[in-house]
């Protein structure tokens, strides 16, 4: 197995673990962490596949897209955390309405 496909495989595993955590756990902070891990998995697959060039110079377009993605991910995380704190402030629990313990 070449390093390219090794990292692509790691990316897929990270994506699956992240999705598992996103569905399974109720706490919103955990869901935010899970989405971030899913995102890292996608980025890893993209950059790994960009390294499949012959002359060893990787494709710069996916790299630029991943950098854009990292910045968008951090702004989405900041917004999600602000929403979580607001939910926590209003209901006393940082969970979605259907998971609330009464």
């Amino acid at each position: 197995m070449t390093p390219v496909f090794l990292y692509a495989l790691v990316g897929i595993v990270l994506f699956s673990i992240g999705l598992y955590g996103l569905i399974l756990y109720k706490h919103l902070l955990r869901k935010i962490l899970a989405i971030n891990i899913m995102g890292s998995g996608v980025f890893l697959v993209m950059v790994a596949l960009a390294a499949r060039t012959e002359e060893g110079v990787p494709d710069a377009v996916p790299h630029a897209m991943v950098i854009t993605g990292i910045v968008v991910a951090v702004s989405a995380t900041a917004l999600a955390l602000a929403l979580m704190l607001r939910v926590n402030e209003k209901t006393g629990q940082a969970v979605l309405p259907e998971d609330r313990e009464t």
Partner: protein
Amino acid sequence: MEEIDLLLLFDAVLGFTLVWLAWQTLSSLDLFRAVVLFIAFGLLMALAWVRLDAPDVALAEATIGAGLTGALLLSALAQLSARQKHESETSLFLRLTLGVLMFFLLIGLGYIVFSLPPQALGLSVEVAKNIELSAVANPVTAVLINYRSYDTLLELGVLLLALLAVWSLGSASTRKSAFVNPVLDLLTRILVPVFILVSGYLLWVGAFAPGGAFQAGAVLAAAGVLLFLNDWHLESKYTGFALRSVLVIGLVMFIAIGFGFVFLDRVFLEYPPELAGGFILLIEAAASLSIGIILAALFLGRDPSVKSDSCSDIDTGVHK
């Protein structure tokens, strides 16, 4: 040959550690532990980017992905009550069912990726062929600011929108740390000028080596986070128009230069090759300033010009 095997072994260990850290992040019931493991995960991701020949991505991941996201997560966690920082165990049936489903997803995705051809040029040839026209030698910067500048332009818009949304949520809780650690205070005084210098260097070097507007902005934001941790705040006369113009200058400069050449018979965001170098640097400088201040403002989490009862004593305080 043995060297290649050692590197492959390193890749395998790194990949396994990444998966293990992600699993621990999601399965540890203590949320503080989860966040700390996630930061470690981000730092190891930066190592993976280096191994994949993507030093630009590695810089962005280490500063933004691990550093700033970590600071945001820890600061949000600190505002949750102690009871909320732990999570109860989930049922075994649910875990098993989901586990089986995710296993099938893994097999499916794995099959798709492994059926891709082992060699693919993608757009690397096109990027290399036109690098002379783009006026920068670093292909990633060329893609970000020149070839695919729409992405970067819209991304600045996304950052601004996120900040607007966070501000309009108006989080009431403010950090009230009366005690400022003297060691942190001294360290901040030394580090902040260094950060600003590093930020400028990353911006300049981005034209021909790993670096660029995002990495420079992130380092600037790190300086802002350090200052906020020391109870520093902007004087109230700067929080109105001055702060807002810095927040939008990246987007405004980008659009202005993009439209400027429309009048010289070019399409939107197309720069003439002989002038591109200077304009790219101008856009990048404005963009990194905006990115840095927006990210630092996202960490602060509230509009500094709005005076609520809880923070009025802070906003009228003396400038440090």
